C-alpha cells in the first residue's frame, strides 16, 4: 500500500475579465496514509474541490507536485524543471476512483452496466466485468436493481451506483466530492454508515469533502479544516468516532457522545470565525 503525498502545492486561477489572479490553494503540504479516512471541511471557496481535483489529476498545480506511491499524479518537483518529464505525470487514473455529487452516471446504461463501465474501458470481458460489478453492487445494497435505468433511481440509489462504479476498478483510494450533499437527511445518514462499512471492508484510502460538521466528525479518522483566501489547511484533528461506530453500530449514540458534541462546538467555532473573516467566494 502506498501513501498519497502533496508537496508544497499552490493553485492560481486566472482572474475574471483580466482581473487579479485568484489563489485557490496556497502552500499545501499534506499526506494521506494507507487506510486513512480523511475528511476536508470548510466554507465554500476554501479550495476543497480544487484539492480533490488535484488528487484526481483533473488539474495541474501552479506550483508543487502530488505523488501516489512512486508515481506522479500532477505537477513536478522543482529539481525536474527543464527536464522533459511530462510523460511521467499520470493525470487521472484508475488507481484513484472518484465519486461526484451528481450528474456523473451514464443514463444510457443500466445499473449493472454503469458499475461495470470502468472494467469495460479496460477491456475486461463482458462476463467477468458483470460478475465483478455485481459483487460491488451487492456491497452497496443494490442486488435487485441490475437492470434498472439509472435515471429512474432515487438520488441515494444513484450515489450507491456511483460508489460501486468507483470501487469496481479496485482503486487505491476513493475521492468523494460532497457525495451526500444533494441527498435528504435520512438517506444521507444511511449512506454515511454504508461508506464507513465500505471503508472497513476494502481498507482503501478515502478523501471525503463535506459541508456538514457532523458528517465530517462522524466519518473522519483525520479531519482537515480549510480556510479561504488563500485556500489553505488551518487545522488538523485525528478522530475516532468512525471506529466507535463500527464497533457499536449506533450512529445516534456516537453523535450524542459528550466528546462528539464538544468537538462539534469546537469545529463550528473555527469555521464561524472563518466565515466572519472570509465569507466565501460563492
Amino acid at each position, binding site marked *: 500500500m502506498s501513501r498519497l503525498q502533496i508537496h508544497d502545492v499552490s493553485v492560481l486561477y486566472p482572474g475574471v475579465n483580466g482581473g487579479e489572479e485568484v489563489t485557490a490553494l496556497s502552500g499545501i503540504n499534506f499526506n494521506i496514509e494507507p487506510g486513512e479516512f480523511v475528511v476536508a471541511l470548510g466554507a465554500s471557496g476554501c479550495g476543497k474541490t480544487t484539492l480533490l481535483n488535484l488528487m484526481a489529476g*483533473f488539474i495541474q498545480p501552479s506550483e508543487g507536485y502530488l505523488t501516489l506511491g512512486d508515481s506522479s499524479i500532477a505537477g513536478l518537483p522543482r529539481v525536474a524543471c527543464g527536464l522533459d518529464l511530462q510523460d511521467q505525470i499520470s493525470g487521472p487514473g484508475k488507481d*484513484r*476512483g472518484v465519486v461526484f455529487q451528481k450528474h*456523473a452516471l451514464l*443514463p444510457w446504461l443500466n445499473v449493472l452496466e454503469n458499475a461495470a463501465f470502468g472494467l469495460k474501458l479496460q477491456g475486461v470481458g463482458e462476463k467477468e466485468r458483470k460478475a465483478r460489478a455485481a459483487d460491488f453492487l451487492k456491497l452497496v445494497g443494490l442486488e435487485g436493481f441490475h437492470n434498472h435505468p439509472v435515471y429512474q433511481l432515487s438520488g441515494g440509489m444513484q450515489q450507491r451506483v456511483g460508489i460501486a462504479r468507483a470501487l469496481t476498478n479496485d482503486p487505491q483510494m476513493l475521492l468523494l466530492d460532497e457525495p451526500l450533499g444533494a441527498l435528504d437527511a435520512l438517506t444521507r445518514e444511511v449512506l454515511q454508515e454504508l461508506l464507513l462499512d465500505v471503508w472497513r471492508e476494502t481498507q482503501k484510502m478515502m478523501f471525503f469533502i463535506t459541508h456538514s460538521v457532523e458528517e465530517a466528525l462522524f466519518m473522519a479518522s483525520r479531519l482537515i479544516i480549510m480556510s479561504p483566501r488563500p485556500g489553505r489547511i488551518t487545522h488538523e484533528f485525528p478522530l475516532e468516532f468512525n471506529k466507535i461506530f463500527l464497533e457499536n453500530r449506533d450512529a445516534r449514540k456516537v453523535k450524542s457522545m459528550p466528546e462528539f458534541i464538544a468537538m462539534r462546538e469546537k469545529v463550528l467555532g473555527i469555521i464561524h470565525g472563518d466565515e466572519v473573516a472570509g465569507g466565501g467566494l460563492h
Partner: protein
Amino acid sequence: MNQTTIATPPNANKSVNELVKPTLLKRCLSVFAAGPVKPGESYGAPGQGKSLAISLFTTTMLIGIWYIATYFEWVKPLFLPSPGAVVMRFWEVATEGFANATLLEHTGWSMMRVFSAFLLALVTAVPIGIFMGVNRIARGIFDPIIEFYRPLPPLAYLPLVIIWLGIGEVSKVVLIYLAIFAPMALSARAGVKSVAMEQIHAAYSMGASRWQVIKHIILINALPEILTGMRIGIGFGWTTLVAAEMVAAQAGLGFMVLNAAEFLVTDIVIMGIVVIGIIAYLFDMLMRYLERKLVPWKGR
C-alpha cells in the same frame, strides 16, 4: 382547519346543490368535492393538458369553412377550388398523371432528391459537426463557412449552383443538401458541447483514454441533439424542394406545383402542397418515434 368539513363534501354538496341553482356557485363548490386531482392542474405551469381534440376541431373547422366558402361560391374556383375538386384531382393525377408523370412518379422523384440529400448530409454533416465540437482547428475551419451561408435563402445561391453543376439532378440534390447540412452540423456540434464535465472526469478517473472518452461519453451524449438536428434538417430539405425543382425538372412534387401554377390549375397546386405537407409530417412522426426508441434517457 376543521376536519369534518373535509370529510363530508359528497352529501353536503348534494344538499347545497339542491338548494342553490346558480352554476357559478356550483363550480365554486366543486373545488371542495372529492375526486382525483392532477398535480400542476391548478397553480402549475400554464398550458397543461391535452390538445389533440382541439387540434382535430381546428382542422375540421378549417376544412369546413373551405367547403362552405367554395360551395356558396364566395371565392372563384380559380383562386380557391373546392375540397371535392382537389380530391378529384388527386385521383386523376394518381391514375392518369399530370405533366407526363403520375403522382407516384412525382412523389418518387422528390423523395429521391430529398432523401439522397438527407443521407449525404447525414454522413458528412454529423461527423463534421462532431469534429467541430472536439477539435479547435476543425471548428476554426468550418465555423465561418457554415455561419456565412446558413442564413442565405437557397434561392439566392441556386443560380450559382446551376452555373457550377449544370441543370441535372446533381445541382438539385446539392441545393437541398446545403440546406440540410448547416442545421445538422450545428446540432451535432451543440450535442458534443452539451456533455457534463462530471461524466468526462468520471471516465478519465476510470482509466479511459481520450479516444474512449469521445467514443463512450461524448458521442452518445450528442445523440439526442443529432436526432433533433436530423428532424430540423429534413424539414429544411422539404422547404428547399420547390426551389430545387424550379429549373429543368421533368418530374417532382415541386415541379408539379410550379407547372400547375403556370397554367392556373389551382386544384393541383393545393393538392401538391397537401401531399408535400403530409409526407414531411409522416417523416417527422417517424423521427420522433426513433427518438423515443433510441434515446429514452434524453433530458434525464
